[in-house]
């Protein structure tokens, strides 16, 4: 459904735009309907830039992003973009800044109506809203008519997902949607993503937290310095990380039932240790990937 191939993004930086900052380097990945793909990386790994490019908020420097066969970068004009956003929507990290504090929270829903469904009758619209609020397990009476400051972060985040569901979306880009939520409520939002996946939605789940990535995703893509370090089925990547960087990351994640020392010992045990080729010097060129298992790829070492 969504296919990225050889996507690069170079930002111009500095006072006169003379400097170049490579944010994304030769990334390729696919998201199928009903699949959750986790993009995991530390700060500066290019994960949010990728999310923004998929949403059409930033254009890739080179490469192709195709959604249902059509090139996303070729979408030009207000109307065509609007049609694209009927199918592809994003939800971002900070739910509090996604709302205008002086309006009631449901304004995000009525704005969808005025721009996408002007012909729908009031009664019909009310049914749709109730429907999508029920899908995200919000009580309509508890959220409608409230201001953003009267709702919790988890409620606001679910309201934004409900907003996306009012449209006929096929792909949801969830950029760090739960990192600002408390532990007791974030799991509900994660479970909601899993429900949406069962309804056939494709989800690109951008996160820095490996444990959250494991919980929901089918496929994991670990990014480092803009390039793919390792990608493959979530189970394979976490059970048998092959890239030295993935191993390092996994050794640093705090776990509830195992200490860092135990994880270190486990990772140090004898394992197949494929040599990771250094990245080619040509920055604009392709970066080789080695296949180590079924659908499990290891990228080059970015140093």
């Amino acid at each position, binding site marked *: 459904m969504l296919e990225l191939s050889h996507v690069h993004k170079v930002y111009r930086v500095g006072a006169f735009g003379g400097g170049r900052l490579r944010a994304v380097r030769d990334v390729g990945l696919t998201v199928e309907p009903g699949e959750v793909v986790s993009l995991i990386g*530390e*700060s500066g790994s290019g994960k949010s830039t990728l999310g923004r490019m998929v949403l059409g908020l930033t254009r890739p420097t080179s490469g192709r992003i195709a959604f249902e066969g059509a090139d996303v970068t070729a979408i030009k004009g207000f109307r065509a973009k609007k049609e694209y956003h009927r199918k592809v929507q994003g939800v971002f990290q900070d739910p509090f800044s996604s709302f205008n504090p002086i309006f009631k929270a449901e304004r995000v829903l009525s704005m969808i109506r005025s721009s996408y469904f002007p012909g729908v009758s009031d009664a019909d619209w009310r049914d749709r809203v109730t429907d999508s609020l029920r899908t995200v397990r919000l009580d309509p009476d508890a959220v409608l008519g409230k201001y953003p400051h009267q709702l*919790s972060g988890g409620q606001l985040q679910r309201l934004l997902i409900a907003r996306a569901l009012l449209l006929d979306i096929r792909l949801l880009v969830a950029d760090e949607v739960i990192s600002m939520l*408390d*532990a*007791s*409520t*974030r*799991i*509900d939002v*994660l*479970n909601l993503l*899993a429900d949406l996946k069962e309804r056939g939605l494709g989800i690109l789940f951008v996160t*820095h937290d*490996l*444990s*959250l*990535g*494991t*919980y929901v995703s089918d496929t994991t893509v670990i990014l480092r310095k803009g390039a793919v370090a390792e990608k493959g089925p*979530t*189970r394979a990547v*976490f*059970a048998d990380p092959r890239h030295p960087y993935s191993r*390092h*990351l*996994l050794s*640093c*994640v*705090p*776990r*509830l*039932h195992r*200490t*860092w020392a135990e994880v270190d010992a486990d990772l140090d045990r004898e394992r197949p240790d494929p040599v990771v080729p250094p990245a080619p010097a040509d920055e604009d060129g392709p970066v080789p990937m080695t296949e180590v298992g079924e659908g499990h790829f290891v990228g080059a070492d970015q140093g």
Partner: protein
Amino acid sequence: MSLRVNGLKVHYRTLRGDVQALDGVTFSLGDGEIMGLVGESGCGKSTLGKSLIRLDHRMHHIAGSIELNGRDVPIGDDAAMVPLRYHEISLIPQYAMSALNPTRRIGRMIDELLRSRGVRPADRADELRRRLELVGLGTDVLRRFPIELSGGMKQRVVMVVSTLLDPSLLIADEVTSALDVSTQRSVAESLVEFRDRGHVGSMVFVTHDVALVHQFADTIMVMYAGHVAEKGPAADVVSDPRHPYTQMLLSALPEAGEDTGERLRGIPGTPPGLLDPPTGCRFRDRCPMAFDKCAERPPLVETAPGHWSACWKTEGH
């Protein structure tokens, strides 16, 4: 026992009334103990951390006492606290990244800070250099401006500065929350190293991340809506939680690399507002085990050596 907090009540004064952020908090810390203080946002964990060193103008000390190494800490008296701050009790603030003066080189800023506390910078210069090396920084950071350092480096600089006078108590407030996982681990390990070398006495590590604090803390204290829910040895709290809130919180955490295919469950409901909190156990409304007696506040009771829990349903009541 190096720190004893007894029945501490701190309220925020607002126009609509008092927000009862800390409502009778009692615990103690042993020498060299690293205590992880965990809870959700608004549970009073940061307020407790701040109350041990400085109350800001909205915070009011209502009742309770704090004792450090057998001496009373006059928390309500701002002027009397001044000699204790930095020398005896020190803090790594939540936004340590922005705690450094952007217009000063790091070295000069540290000198000014020490002088303001009546310490000659030359007396601590060797120690400063040694400790910077201990956390993996060269002494050249002293000639740099904060803007030239990465987030992790700034965090480590603040850590060294905060502990330079060997305080008996260090409060670390969400110090690793803004860092990447790999930096997080090295900062946490440096904190333990500082304790092992005696650069700090005991430590209160405020965080929302139970999994992180379980990696290196000796004990964990769980707070809920201004009350202490549970305190005990870190391994015991994680493997055998006694309070229903701790049990539900821990079962809502996904684990990296472990995909059992099972759905985890969150805790339904939200914490009570603290402007006019309910009487009795504050977790009552969300607790599946709640019964009539919960209308009365459960006392904190020792259920196993060093393991305390405030729930009518735990053994010992």
